[in-house]
């Protein structure tokens, strides 16, 4: 017996010992080698796994940052600057985490856009969609909590405004605000609370919900760009479904590397992204006595922050803000179209989706700039547009003329 054979048998023994005690083989079968996916998935479908990757990257870099971060008003800003200068490769981990936060949202937005594009929220994937929306909202919360931690001017005043939202809830508002802040203003107590939730509580919920999201997805199966059921395919020579391993693992690895290349270019060459990923104002330590003349929100929270700026009535503004997210929950039941994919939908749907994407991107962009009366009016129009996309959906999806669906996903 050669040494190579010996090695094989010993590793084989270890694997066998493990598989007798743990369902490792079943797991690999179920989720990799015998998990079948439609053959025609395009690049829009890789952003889910990319988000999962960036989530773990955030966790890893986050753990590293926690080693050096001091969650006190006196220490927070300094500890980050020490990380950036004195600790070997501290800057790398910090930039990975800060760029990762923005990249996470970009990936999630593309992932959501894919669902809109190919109707992935429609029956039978409503639960996958709902869990995804929950994940998105909790991710927004996680980002908001983490945004306070650098303790710069931008983070401090964004948190001051963010927590003051609860003030306008009738009856319980002031008490709730006090509970969240631990003080009458955002202070050391708030920082400690936000730190705890950002580091432990919310990430645990994210892990749990991600597991549910994936379990639900693997139960109903993946949608595809044609939006037709793959089960009802006629049997021809070409297979319509291919196993996840090796066909999609290699594609996802390819997508991951391309993403990492773009990500690295940002991390190493433009980590501030001209003030969008790291604001200039956040390089000034937080000062509770000095309100900046222009409080600019970070871009991924801007769409929601902007609502408060343009609606004169505060409780109404908060209601609309909640409505922005609430609309996503009822989306699966608003869509009456018999067709899933945008490829076979009529012109109304196409136009509506384009208008919706445009208005949401513009909302995110305009609200990071200084709002002038003209811009406020524009934001109001865009908000109206956002809601009209959802509220008119039952009508335009029902009465539009769709293209005929193909019989198979394997070409015409």
């Amino acid at each position: 017996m050669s040494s190579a054979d010996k090695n094989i048998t010993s590793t084989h023994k270890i694997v066998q010992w493990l598989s007798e005690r743990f369902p490792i083989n079943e797991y690999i079968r179920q989720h990799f080698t015998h998990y079948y996916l439609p053959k025609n998935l395009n690049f829009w479908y890789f952003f889910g796994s990319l988000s999962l990757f960036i989530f773990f990257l955030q966790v890893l870099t986050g753990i590293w940052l926690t080693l050096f971060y001091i969650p006190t008003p006196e220490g927070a800003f300094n500890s980050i600057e020490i990380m950036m200068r004195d600790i070997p490769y501290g800057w790398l981990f910090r930039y990975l985490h800060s760029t990762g936060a923005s990249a996470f949202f970009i990936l999630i937005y593309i992932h959501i856009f894919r669902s809109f594009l190919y109707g992935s929220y429609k029956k039978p994937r409503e639960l996958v969609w709902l869990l995804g929306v929950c994940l998105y909202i909790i991710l927004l919360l996680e980002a908001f909590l983490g945004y306070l931690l650098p303790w710069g001017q931008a983070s401090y005043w964004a948190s001051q405004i963010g927590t003051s939202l609860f003030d306008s809830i009738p009856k319980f508002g002031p008490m709730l605000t006090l509970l969240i802040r631990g003080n009458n203003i955002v202070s050391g107590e708030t920082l400690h609370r936000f730190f705890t939730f950002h580091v432990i509580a919310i990430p645990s919920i994210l892990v749990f919900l991600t597991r549910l999201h994936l379990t639900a997805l693997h139960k109903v199966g993946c949608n595809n760009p044609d939006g037709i059921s793959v089960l009802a395919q006629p049997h021809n020579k070409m297979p319509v479904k291919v196993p996840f391993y090796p066909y999609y693992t290699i594609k996802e690895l390819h997508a991951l590397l391309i993403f990492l290349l773009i990500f690295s270019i940002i991390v190493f060459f433009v980590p501030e992204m001209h003030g969008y990923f790291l604001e200039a104002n956040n390089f000034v330590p937080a000062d509770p006595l000095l309100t900046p003349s222009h409080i600019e929100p970070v871009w991924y929270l801007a769409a929601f922050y902007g609502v408060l700026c343009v609606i004169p009535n505060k409780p109404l503004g908060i209601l609309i803000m909640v409505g922005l997210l609430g609309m996503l929950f009822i989306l699966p039941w608003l869509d009456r179209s018999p067709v899933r994919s945008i490829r076979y939908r009529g012109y109304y749907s196409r136009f509506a989706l384009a208008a919706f994407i445009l208005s949401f991107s513009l909302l995110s962009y305009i609200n990071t700039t200084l709002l002038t009366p003209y811009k406020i009016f524009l934001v109001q129009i865009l908000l109206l547009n956002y809601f009209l996309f959802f509220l008119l959906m039952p009508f335009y999806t029902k009465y539009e003329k769709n293209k005929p669906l193909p019989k198979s996903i394997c070409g015409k």
Partner: protein
Amino acid sequence: MWKIILFFIFIFIFLFTIANSFEKKLSMSSIRASELASLQRGAKYFMNYCSGCHSLQYMRYNRLGVDLKIDDKSNSINQSRLKKNLIFTQAKTSDTIKSSLHKKESLLWFGKRPPDLSLSIRARSADWVYNYLLSFYLDDTRPFGVNNSYIKNTVMPDPLAIIRKDTHTYSNVNNKTNDRLSLKINNHALYLHSNKNRSEGPTLEKIVTDLVNFLAYIAEPTKNNRQSLGKKVCGFLLLLTLFVSILKKQIWENLEK
């Protein structure tokens, strides 16, 4: 399959040796020579004209020494060179750069503490600092005799007054200011110094450019390390992406057969 693994191992060893060869260079400062001269001049100007009031609380003297190559090969010389040329306080070389301006006095003189300048370039911008430093003009109504057209009624006096082109008028201002504060400074010495600078020294714009370069370096001392590491990482990822795309093609070709 074995071919692929061997190829991987080969690439890995190849890249590892490249990375190792780079590492030796990295321990030295990775700032380019042309920049380095400007940064060294900037450090000189900062220590001479700014450090009296402004701190760089996140920067250590010895790091400045290493990064700006204010050293010869042996360590002892490094320290003495740094101490002689850039350290005007009682600080040790391992200390951070702090001004010895007393808090109460600064409040008395300026109405606020001079801000720390470690992050000034990132908090404002290089252009902002450049324009601000160049925009001082004479104004008798202000306590220090100068005003700033970029930031109206700034409380900062013009630190570069003695090297401006219109030094003559400025030294009059200095005279007045000194009278006002009843400080006994040998004005004659001031004239001499400024005249010498004017005839031989660089222009104000060049000095401010050096200062801004220096402050930009202080705002992010790791920027050069970041960019040099970035080139390697991106190069590696590019290679790996090409390799994986070939592998992907092969695997999907199997399906078509």
